[in-house]
């Protein structure tokens, strides 16, 4: 009885409503597809290792503070031997920067790992060449990735080839390639192209992975290890062992010095939540439109019934249209998903055809079900003989619609407020981080000693060019952690350990950090060589120089050291002690600066003692004139080539470093913005359709009111106010919920954006205005209709 032209005809009859539905369904399905594959990828991290469920990473936290991901000087072997549940321990240490020399060519590598010899027993990384049983048996063996193998040798069959490695943190070594492993997949918490077998981790920071007999009740094991640890290290009473299952590291681990920036489970919740909210909005529109369409079609169904059709026929007729509409929505959604995935740089590797089919069927089922509800609940109105029932059902469905509208609007206002909240936190991050707002700073991460020794000539040479504004250096880059501690003793008080930041000349002016009291560092008097001589003298012969070194404190350090005002601290002598960097025992506070965020906004301001040296300028930072970026880059490359001809240049923009540190927040901002725009569009479209329907049913009433003296303005006001009332109710629902959620999210940060009242007002006013604009045109048109025509219409 039914055929495609018929369905098309029925579709065209109410095409505006149907197109709104189609658009909503297509966008929704696109979001579901993309979100599904993204979430699945995030949840799949490290699960592909066959022993993943038995591997945990161990970290120690002291006195309840955030743990460092790495261990240092801990006798892990002792722990393994004394606890029977632990089968083995894998030790990995990461070297940020090293120089790899192969066949005379040097290159900088940023992801060098040292590993204990049981790597391939614990993690089954597939080897293309070499035998996983024996690959790490001989000292000095190294495995490299397929990618690096092709890059260095143009082939993968390279066992026995030699490469040289050098770096600041280890002895130069010549390694023999013992295996080539398959490039690491994206969904693992650390990536590398080169792993060196290492026997001795006594003097390095390393990550410890325990292979345990069975998972996953780790709290007992944590306690056992803690006991052993405390017995072995009685000098560290506040220590507590934390175990993190390897497969959970990506989403749940928040230790300091993660191997790579991780994801965050909260953003999985955020994505699922945003999808659900959008889903509710789309389904409500579907429901609403189904009700509207049904009431348009009532006469048609009454006639069908008059000619003997059953309720089943009526329902089937409606479902048929919805079914094909959803199929069209799914196809369009599939198409749109390509663009959405592209926008978020997500690949579809993590969704199989089978899963897609299941998603399609599920989606189809839900949409048909949702469209069926209003049909079934209104089907009695097609029993055309009874006026009373007829009127009742219409009025009933209208009040339902109002609740739906309120829920939709609450969602839209909620999600917009959350967007504003997240945005203002991101702005705060950029404002708080040193150089966070600037795009004209390039940074060089940890450089090898050969390059560091050329730092001052590099700086001098660069500053000869007008497009380079300023050059400075520091021990760490902004956005990383400052963890080196220095012992400081103020006369008459106990020694306190404070983080130390070693900076180069011009550091404070470089970042626009103002001195609050005292004065800036004077230019350095010694050269790098002289400083090194002093230090070696101290280390080898324990002879301290009698120099008094200038230091600058931040506010927090001032407080920790017990000074009440900056003025009190200026000129005070402080005894300093640090095994690796002090050649003098005495320092004088020359200045005090306000707390500045050098590490990240997750941490509260760290007390810092700031030293100025030539030594330890591990990282360089260069600021150029913003308008002359291209030229500055050219200068940088040519000067670098002249000063460090043997080493390839490897810099990045500071803004990119921050983008990596805050990638979760930035992603969240992007996702939430995207969803709030979709929610808004779909809601407004739904509103327009609803308003058209409402006006259609009220045309006569409007005419009567006009005959009885209502002006056009009064009609428009009446129509708009009836809508505004519901929006206002939505505002009242959305604001407290949004406030609660943002507050909760902000707990992640030590530096929090203030929740300003204007965010709530802006969101509410913005949504109200958009809605008013969307409906006012129709209201005005309705008000303009000559009552002569509408009053007559029966």
């Amino acid at each position: 009885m039914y055929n495609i032209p018929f369905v098309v005809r029925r579709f065209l009859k109410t095409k505006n409503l149907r197109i709104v539905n189609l658009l909503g369904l297509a966008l929704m399905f696109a979001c579901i597809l993309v979100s599904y594959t993204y979430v699945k990828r995030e949840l799949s991290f490290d699960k592909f290792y066959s022993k993943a469920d038995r591997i945990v990473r161990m970290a120690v936290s002291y006195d309840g503070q955030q743990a460092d991901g790495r261990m240092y000087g801990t006798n892990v072997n002792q722990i393994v031997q004394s606890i029977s549940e632990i089968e083995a321990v894998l030790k990995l240490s990461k070297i940020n920067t090293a120089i790899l020399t192969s066949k005379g060519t040097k290159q900088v590598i940023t992801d060098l790992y040292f590993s204990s010899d049981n790597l391939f027993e614990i993690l089954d990384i597939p080897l293309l060449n070499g035998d996983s049983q024996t690959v790490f048996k001989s000292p000095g063996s190294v495995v490299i990735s397929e990618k690096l193998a092709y890059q260095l040798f143009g082939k993968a069959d390279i066992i026995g080839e030699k490469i040289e490695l050098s770096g600041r943190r280890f002895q130069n070594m010549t390694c023999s390639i013992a295996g080539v492993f398959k490039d690491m997949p994206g969904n693992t918490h650390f990536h590398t192209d080169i792993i060196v077998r290492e026997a001795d981790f006594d003097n390095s920071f390393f990550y410890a992975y325990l292979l345990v007999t069975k998972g996953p009740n780790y709290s007992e094991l944590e306690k056992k290890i803690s006991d052993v640890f405390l017995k072995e290290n009685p000098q560290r009473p506040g220590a507590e062992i934390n175990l993190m299952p390897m497969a959970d590291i990506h989403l749940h681990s928040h230790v300091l010095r993660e191997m790579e920036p991780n994801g965050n489970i909260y953003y999985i919740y955020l994505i699922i939540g945003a999808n659900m909210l959008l889903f509710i909005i789309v389904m409500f529109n579907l429901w609403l439109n189904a009700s509207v369409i049904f009431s348009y079609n009532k006469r048609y169904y009454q006639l069908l019934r008059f000619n003997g059709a059953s309720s089943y026929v009526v329902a089937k007729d409606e479902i048929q249209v919805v079914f094909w509409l959803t199929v069209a929505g799914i196809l369009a959604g599939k198409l749109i998903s390509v663009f959405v995935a592209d926008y978020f740089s997500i690949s579809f590797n993590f969704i199989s055809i089978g899963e897609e089919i299941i998603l399609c069927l599920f989606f189809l089922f839900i949409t048909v079900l949702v469209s069926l509800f209003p049909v079934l609940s209104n089907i009695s109105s097609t029993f055309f003989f009874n006026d009373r029932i007829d009127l009742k059902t219409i009025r009933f469905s209208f009040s339902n619609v109002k609740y739906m509208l309120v829920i939709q609007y609450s969602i839209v206002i909620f999600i917009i407020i959350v967007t504003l909240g997240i945005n203002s936190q991101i702005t705060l991050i950029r404002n708080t981080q040193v150089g966070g707002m600037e795009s004209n700073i390039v940074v060089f991460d940890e450089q090898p000693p050969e390059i560091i020794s050329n730092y001052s000539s590099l700086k001098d040479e660069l500053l000869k060019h007008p497009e380079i504004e300023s050059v400075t250096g520091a021990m760490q880059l902004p956005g990383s952690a400052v963890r080196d501690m220095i012992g400081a003793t103020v006369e008459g008080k106990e020694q306190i350990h404070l983080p130390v930041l070693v900076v180069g000349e011009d550091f404070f002016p470089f970042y626009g950090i103002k001195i609050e009291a005292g004065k800036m560092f004077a230019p350095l008097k010694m050269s790098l060589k002289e400083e090194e001589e002093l230090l070696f003298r101290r280390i080898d012969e324990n002879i301290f120089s009698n120099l008094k070194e200038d230091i600058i404190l931040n506010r927090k350090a001032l407080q920790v050291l017990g000074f009440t005002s900056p003025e009190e601290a200026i000129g005070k002598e402080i005894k300093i002690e640090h095994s690796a960097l002090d050649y003098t025992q005495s320092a004088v506070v020359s200045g005090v600066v306000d707390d500045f965020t050098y590490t990240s906004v997750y941490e509260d301001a760290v007390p810092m003692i700031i030293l100025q040296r030539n030594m330890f300028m591990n990282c360089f930072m260069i600021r150029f004139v913003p308008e002359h970026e291209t030229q500055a880059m050219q200068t940088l490359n040519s000067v670098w080539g002249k000063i460090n001809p043997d080493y390839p240049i490897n810099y990045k923009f500071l803004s990119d470093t921050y983008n990596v540190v805050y990638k979760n927040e930035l992603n969240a901002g992007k996702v939430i913005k995207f969803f709030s725009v979709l929610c808004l569009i779909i809601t407004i479209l739904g509103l327009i359709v609803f308003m058209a329907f409402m006006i259609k049913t009220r045309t006569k009433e409007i005419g009567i009111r006009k005959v009885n003296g209502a002006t056009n303005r009064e009609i428009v006001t009446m129509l708009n106010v009836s809508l505004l009332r519901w929006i206002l109710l939505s505002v009242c629902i959305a604001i407290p919920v949004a406030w609660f959620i943002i507050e909760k999210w902000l707990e992640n940060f030590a530096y929090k954006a203030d929740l300003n009242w204007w965010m709530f007002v802006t969101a509410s006013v913005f949504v109200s205005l958009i809605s008013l604009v969307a409906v006012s045109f129709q209201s005005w048109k309705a008000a303009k209709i000559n009552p002569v025509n509408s009053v007559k219409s029966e």
Partner: protein
Amino acid sequence: MIQIKDLKKVFRTEEVETVALNGISMHVTQGEFIAIMGPSGCGKSTLLNILGLLDNPTSGHYLLDGKEVGNLKEKERTQSRKGNIGFVFQSFNLIEEMTVFENVELPLTYLKVKAAERKKRVEETLHKMSISHRASHFPNQLSGGQQQRVAIARAVIANPKLILADEPTGNLDSKNGKDVMDLLTELNQEGATIVMVTHSQHDASFAHRTINLFDGQIITEVESKM
């Protein structure tokens, strides 16, 4: 009260031009009760709409209380109509979502009469129309006669000088029709000017004067024998 001279109304579409009123001249004095008769499509309703300031004539003059109102803008028409003209329709035109009370109250709200005053006047008028007991009912809970009495109550609530009735008994049985005509006569006797369009010779007999329209022109004007 009403002076009409050479009134024309032409409805134009791109292809078709229909002359609904073709040079009508007439006058209505204060306190008169006029019936307009004629076959379907003769222009009765168009004339009534123009008299009621719902529509503008294409040409000609319409003086209401000596003031030219034939070419007012829509806003000015609404202003002049407010409180001055009451309408009664064949199909009652009550708002279904509003109670009887609210329906009758409507013109007063648009005249910005205070709530207490509105309540008093609505109650008085409903009482006069003998439907006070139905004040809180909805229109669809009333009979046709009752609905028309509510509509008349609404038409007179603001004490308009002119009441326009478009076939007020058209949807009613003879008993209810007679009640409505009696009500209109009573209002007329109290001083209201009434212009009524009707098909019924019987209804027209209540009027002082009957104007017969045909094809947009006045054919005859007959003074009632009463």
